[in-house]
């Protein structure tokens, strides 16, 4: 059937806006990454791959930043996924209590990062913070810390905040995935005398792979993009110990006005994200089963 040409008009407003404010900046990031532009003057020079060489060989903060990002990402991906899965398995049935608990666990997701940052700044506060108070109360004073001020642990403190923020959302995805598994499969496993663990291994786990793929992929990307939380809680400090790629791009561009160099880090960032997404889907796709 022929479709009238006016159909192209439906793309027009969306495509114009998207090209101007997304595609064009993406391409110009690539362009500026080969220049020494400061973001203010109209003049700049091409410097070849100097910015990239600098990032990989001459910039120790950037290298530290990549390490911080990996620490943050691994902590969040591993623990958030485990917490979400473990609790999803407990609250899977649609009883009144479970529905309420799921809604409660999900609650932090609707808050803004800035709000969450303030709440956790108070929890971690070295003098009047909830965490140190509770530790004192249960006789574990020696664990009391300056949770965001200690360069060795600040990045992990941020990771815990991120998990509190988003684990509930991942839990809901797991619940949806678990509820989609046909009840009969568990009955078959029961009749065949499988233990609870065996049923989990041979029924739940393989059929949960699609949800697990989504959770792991989403959590990974989300932890790379945790700009707001880091920016509002530590600003990358102390001593760059919580600087992640996204906050570093901001600092390089808007605090030291090296737009060219910031662009090259953006391009590296983009490549890393694309690579992770690709690898994850490849790795996790091979686990998928059908029934």
């Amino acid at each position, binding site marked *: *059937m022929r*479709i*009238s040409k*006016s*159909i*192209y*008009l*439906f*793309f027009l*407003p*969306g*495509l114009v806006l*998207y090209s101007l*404010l*997304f595609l*064009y900046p*993406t391409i*110009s990031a690539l362009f500026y990454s080969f220049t020494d532009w400061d*973001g203010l003057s109209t003049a700049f020079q091409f410097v070849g791959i100097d910015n990239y060489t600098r990032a990989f060989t001459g910039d120790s903060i950037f290298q530290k930043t990549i390490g911080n990002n990996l620490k943050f990402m691994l902590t969040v991906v591993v623990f958030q996924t485990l917490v979400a899965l*473990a*609790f999803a398995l*407990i609250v899977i049935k649609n009883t009144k209590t479970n529905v309420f*608990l*799921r*809604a*409660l*666990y*999900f*609650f*932090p*997701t*609707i*808050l*803004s*990062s*800035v*709000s969450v940052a*303030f*709440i956790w700044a*108070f929890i971690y*506060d070295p003098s*009047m913070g*909830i965490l140190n108070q509770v530790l004192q109360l249960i006789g574990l004073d020696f664990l009391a810390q300056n949770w965001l001020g200690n360069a060795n642990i600040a990045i992990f403190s941020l990771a815990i905040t991120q998990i*509190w923020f988003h684990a*509930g959302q991942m839990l*809901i*995805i797991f619940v*949806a995935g678990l509820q989609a598994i046909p009840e009969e499969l568990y009955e078959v496993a029961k009749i065949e005398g499988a233990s609870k663990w065996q049923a989990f291994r041979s029924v739940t786990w393989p059929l949960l792979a699609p949800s697990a793929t989504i959770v792991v992929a989403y959590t990974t990307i989300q932890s*790379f993009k945790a700009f707001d939380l880091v*920016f*509002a809680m530590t600003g990358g400090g102390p001593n760059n110990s919580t600087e992640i790629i996204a906050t570093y*791009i901001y600092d390089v*561009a808007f605090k030291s006005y090296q*737009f060219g160099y*910031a662009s090259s880090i*953006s391009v590296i*960032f*983009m490549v890393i*994200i694309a690579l992770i*997404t690709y690898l994850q889907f490849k790795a996790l796709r091979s686990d998928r089963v059908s029934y």
Partner: protein
Amino acid sequence: MLFRKFSLLIYALLILIPLVVVLLTSVKTLQETFRDPLGLPDGGFKFDNYIAIFQEQTMAGYFLNSTIVTLFSVSFTLLLAAMVAFGITRMNNWIGNLLFAVFTLGMMVPAQVIMVPLYSLMLDLGLTNSLLGLILVNISSTLPIAVFILTGFMKTLPKELFEASTIDGAGNWKMFTKVAIPLSLPSISATAIFLFVMHWNDLLYPLLFITDNAYKTLPLALLEFQGQYSTNYPMLFTGVIIASAPMVIAYVLLQRYFVAGITAGAVKG
């Protein structure tokens, strides 16, 4: 069994205690908070912080800005995305597939990647310190995910419905407004909730493009309270409560739709 119940309780407390502390702290004075950070206020609840924050800050203005930016960003993202999704679904050929790929590519690129060139572009266009600028950037940044979700949904609609309306002589626009939109309402409303939460809470774009108090949105204003109030948590938490109130109220009322909407955004994005 007991261990399970205990774990559920601990997790519930980990969410509830901080929220209760935020509420309590907002009705305490700074002195009371220093003396006993977790205790109840001595002389009953005081709403002085709420009065003070409205006197010291242009709260109503921030609130209005957030409302305007969110409403326009959500409705225009949905309109433009629905149009694109309809176009892709109707064309159903290589051009449609190519456009779909171009739009969804945007889901892979985090906003932080383009913040540098986007900033200079917005400066050149004179769209910094402007609500219009914020709205336009918001639309372009959430268009990819909205196109992705809505196209996925529209493709499941029976083709016969569109074809029947063609026979009745309906043009594309009429087909869009009379057939595609009404039938896609479940998907559109789920996407709407997802977008509402996202735009209401967004920090990055206001941080980049807004320096004038007259155009600041709540998250940005809140962030800057930290500079003014430092560790005056009663004031900070009063700000947190005011900024979160609309989303919290909506969540309590429409809880099921929220969970479904935000999760759809995550799953499909």
